[in-house]
């Protein structure tokens, strides 16, 4: 089928098989490999993207279901080439990653959380990332990264 996906602000015309997931469409159709494929059946959260600003799992959607919605991937959250957003920068600073496999999903989940809830409690952060698995860090520094990002976002006037 032919479809148009709005990814990181631009419309992309794609020709895909009907059964293509949004995850595969982003990685193989659009060529953005920042959205990671982990379990491909909804368990790990590494494929998380933003759909109209809210976190969803791209492996649990058909590409066709995303038509007419705004998709944001990890490539779309930086202010400019070579720069990092505040949330990404906070992950670097607190060492909120080791292998980095879970990181795009964690960062996008954090961005969605902080948009709704600019000052989350530790419990709220833990609940927000409860669907994202990390096999390396033990989560401690990821929670710290999100708390640091919240603090910085509140003090900054750029997103």
């Amino acid at each position, binding site marked *: 089928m032919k479809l148009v996906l709005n990814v990181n602000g631009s419309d992309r015309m794609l020709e895909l098989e009907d059964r293509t997931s949004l995850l595969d469409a982003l990685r193989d159709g659009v060529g953005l490999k920042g959205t990671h494929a982990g379990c491909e059946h909804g368990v790990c959260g590494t494929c998380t993207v933003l759909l109209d600003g809210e976190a969803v799992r791209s*492996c649990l959607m058909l590409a066709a279901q995303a038509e007419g919605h705004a998709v944001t991937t990890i490539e779309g959250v930086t202010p400019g080439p070579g720069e990092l957003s505040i949330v990404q920068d906070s992950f670097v600073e607190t060492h909120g990653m080791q292998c980095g496999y879970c990181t795009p999903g964690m960062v996008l989940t954090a961005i969605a959380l902080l948009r709704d809830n600019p000052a989350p409690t530790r419990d709220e952060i833990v609940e927000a990332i409860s669907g994202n698995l990390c096999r390396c860090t033990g989560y401690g520094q990821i929670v710290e990264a999100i708390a640091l990002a919240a603090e910085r976002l509140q003090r900054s006037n750029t997103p």
Partner: protein
Amino acid sequence: MKPAPFEYIRAESVLQAQEWLAADPEARVIAGGQTLMPMLAMRLVRPTRVIDIAGIAGLDEIAVTAELVTFGAMVRQVTVERSAAVAQALPLLAKAIRYVGHPPTRRRGTIGGSVANADPAAEIALVAVTLGAEVLTTADGFSARDFFLAPMTTALPAGAMVTGLRFPRVTAARRGTGFAEVAMRQGDYAMAAAACELVLGAGGEVASLRIGIGGATPVPVLLDLAEPTREAIAAALAPLEMMHDPNAGAGYRRRAALALAMQALDEAQREVMA
């Protein structure tokens, strides 16, 4: 790409979806896709056509009247979670919805998909059975108690689809609710869960007590209770068939169901007294 090939089509009305379903027994509805997509990826299902019902006008509405609260099948779980009207009219569902998966799965997952899927651990189904909800379909309406037949099996006739879920509304001032479950991790399917609604009459007497069990039993069960005591709950649980798997045996589930029912009851009692 993991699923077997299929054709994706968007239904514009319930009638059209129903016609497509009736014409092809191998066609399937996709609502939120949070269960269907994994099933497709694992090739547990190989439909010929996947019918997207997300674009059907009106299917994503919540209607609250003096007597009823009606959810269209496409109402997203996150909409229920964020609805002030639901929190006020159906506090038990508002509590339970937070246990359904994780925030991103609730963003996509729907009321109708959860009901049609009939997972024994589904919290929405448990609340539906506990509160005596009605499952609305393109065929008949079914009381939730009669709709869930076995794990992943419902009374939905072939070719029909679920169009909504309707709850009776309790407006009594003195009402308390409680919800408790145990799962391997937060957001996982419950090994046992309990939901409770307690309504007191004007004189403080128990006007209605409902305790439902899910996760432990093959389908959610409303306990037959004479009084709000541990002994009565244990007696009501005794004859029920419990599921078992390597993580949680039948004995564990029965004990967990009792403990969780007591927790839910306690929460409801504290709420009604406050």
